[in-house]
């Protein structure tokens, strides 16, 4: 029966796509036109799997047939698994029907490389084109840029997709050479560079002509696998910083390596997924993108690894006690954002509220500040602020002693750089 065959394909091709962690469906501004189907704007997580990750897009591979043999990938050529491939129409039908039931925000389509890069990319583009032109579908589409695909196809992809991404796979070129000898980092950078320039060009065009078509309005992202190769957090974050700065990437995703294959180049099969480290990397990433931190403030030669037991902002703060205390009622918002326990929203509320009256510790707590961390680093209207002359290490111990970290049970150490 046809339904059974589709179910089997879906199971195989969703399972193979799940290690790509990109899930964003935000950042686009595609409107529903001419009473068509869907729109893409602010991003919605429609469900969450039992591992706590969000399900926002129908994330599938077009096929898991692949000519490459990358050690970390379940779909590698020499892995003995079931193979399957969707037809263009099958992907279109699944997307439309899932979307109409409000299961998803759109489609995330990736693929194993069959035949060659252009042949694969051409099929991905064809699906996006069909959804947009034949079905008037305005939901979110994220396409993988296949390394080595021609500029012409990349340009077409940008016409239909909201976001495009090329996975760098390993944080450094050396890591990639080790695990994916068939792949070449330059092949990944080329389409990224092409799209960057094209996006800049189209954005200029859009400023002049309002009717100019959208071109990848949600920009580009990439993913690096963490813990499969021995890079330090410093190398990972510096690489991320380089791509943010030079390729205008919207996001870099960090994917903790899940041991799926036995290979002497890889961590053993029973290795736990480095979930804490992954979480700390995302926190550091946020500090770089939204909190005005320079990558070297977070990791540097003296501090190449992120603390696993405390967050990177707190870690920075206790290494830089000379920057504190910060006066909540006077300091610039950029400085307030550097206080551990104060997030973006709290900082904005503080700056609004203090125009009316000076704020006390109680009020800060109500506003949403994590007082247990912030109180060592601020002065405010209350008299109960910290008076002792504490060292960074003291503060770390106090905070750890009174907090029940969700990570204490499964703290694990990083691979050491030998």
């Amino acid at each position, binding site marked *: 029966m046809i339904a059974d065959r589709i179910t089997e394909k879906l199971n195989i091709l969703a399972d193979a796509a799940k290690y790509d962690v990109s899930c964003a469906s935000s950042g686009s501004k595609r409107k529903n036109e001419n009473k068509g189907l869907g729109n893409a704007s602010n991003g919605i997580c429609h469900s969450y799997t*039992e591992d706590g990750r969000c399900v926002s897009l129908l994330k599938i591979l077009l096929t898991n047939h692949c000519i490459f043999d990358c050690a970390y990938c379940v779909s590698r050529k020499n892995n003995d698994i079931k193979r399957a491939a969707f037809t263009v129409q099958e992907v279109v039908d699944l997307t439309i029907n899932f979307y109409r039931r409000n299961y998803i925000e759109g489609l995330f389509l990736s693929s194993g490389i069959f035949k060659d890069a252009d042949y694969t990319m051409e099929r991905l583009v064809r699906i996006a084109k069909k959804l947009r032109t034949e079905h008037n579908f305005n939901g979110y589409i994220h396409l993988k840029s296949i390394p080595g695909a021609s500029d012409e196809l990349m340009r077409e992809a940008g016409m239909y997709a909201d976001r495009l991404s090329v996975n760098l796979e390993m944080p450094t070129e050396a890591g990639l050479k080790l695990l994916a000898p068939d792949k070449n980092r330059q092949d990944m950078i080329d389409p990224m560079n092409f799209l960057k320039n094209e996006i800049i060009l189209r954005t200029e065009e859009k400023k002049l002509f309002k009717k100019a078509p959208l071109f990848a309005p949600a920009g580009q992202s990439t993913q690096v696998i963490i813990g499969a190769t021995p890079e330090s957090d410093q190398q990972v974050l510096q690489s991320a910083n380089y791509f943010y700065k030079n390729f205008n990437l919207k996001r870099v995703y960090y994917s903790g390596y899940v041991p799926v294959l036995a290979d002497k180049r890889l961590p053993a099969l029973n290795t736990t997924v480095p979930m804490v480290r992954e979480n700390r990397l995302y926190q550091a990433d946020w500090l770089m993108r939204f909190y005005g931190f320079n990558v070297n403030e977070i990791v540097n030669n003296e501090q190449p690894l992120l603390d696993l037991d405390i967050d990177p902002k707190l870690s920075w703060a206790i290494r830089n006690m000379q920057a504190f205390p910060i006066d909540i009622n006077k300091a610039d918002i950029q400085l307030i954002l550097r206080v551990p326990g104060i997030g973006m929203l709290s900082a904005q509320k503080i700056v609004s509220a203090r125009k009316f009256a000076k704020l006390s510790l109680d009020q800060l707590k109500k506003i949403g500040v994590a007082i247990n961390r912030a109180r060592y680093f601020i002065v405010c209207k209350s008299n109960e602020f910290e008076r002792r002359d504490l060292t960074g290490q003291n503060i770390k111990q106090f905070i750890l002693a009174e907090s029940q970290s969700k990570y204490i049970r499964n703290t694990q150490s990083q691979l050491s750089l030998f």
Partner: protein
Amino acid sequence: MYTLVYDGTFEGLLTAVFEIYERKLFHVKLIKGEWRSTAMFEEVVPVVTDDERANRVLAGLRKKLSRAGIQRLYIAHMAEMENEENAIVGFIRYVFDSDQNIEEDYGNKYVMRLSEIIKMVRREKHRMEAFVRFQKLKDETFYSAVEPDFNVLPLLIRHFKSRYADQKWIIYDIKRGYGIYYDLHDTQYISLDFTDVKNAGNVITAFSEDEGIYQHLWKNYFTSVNIVARKNTKLHLRHIPKRYWRHLTEKI
């Protein structure tokens, strides 16, 4: 201490504010309910909703709040949270008692509480935008049953109307007994009679032919994308609390 009893409407609440100022009732408690005439509770004051008085209060608020501020006030009331009238009235009184616009004075307890209420309502609205699961019926209408914590259906219209412009749909709040119906042109509020169907969430007999197949595919997809090695039940439950499960196709 006086207890004001009002009819639960926004106009009623504004009328109550009018009474407070006119009769100088400064220690008051506002409750929603029906007024029963009884001499036993002398300090209970019934509020008779009066559009003219309500409009005067609203006009006063407009002078002192931004448009967004007025809207937030309206949303907070419409959500029908239990016993939050006093926070809303407290906020309004703080607005009138101040010389400047106080809507960002988060150091004030009423402003902060209103901000918390709005945050809860917005989260519930966002959850509904995520958790609505349409089921395609034989007449091509897409039907969904929901049970939101607060009354957020009116806030959903814009989102669903612009997204699903080319299909008929119904979102039905079982808890509050009303729904929104979009007929390809406009939306209207409706009330359905479920007497011949035992459970309003279950309309299986009216499913279109392919509905079962897509539900099955979606459940399969949901299972396939899970990474067992990363199991994190606590996080899972924080994102989808159990009370939402019975209307989620993938969790049934």
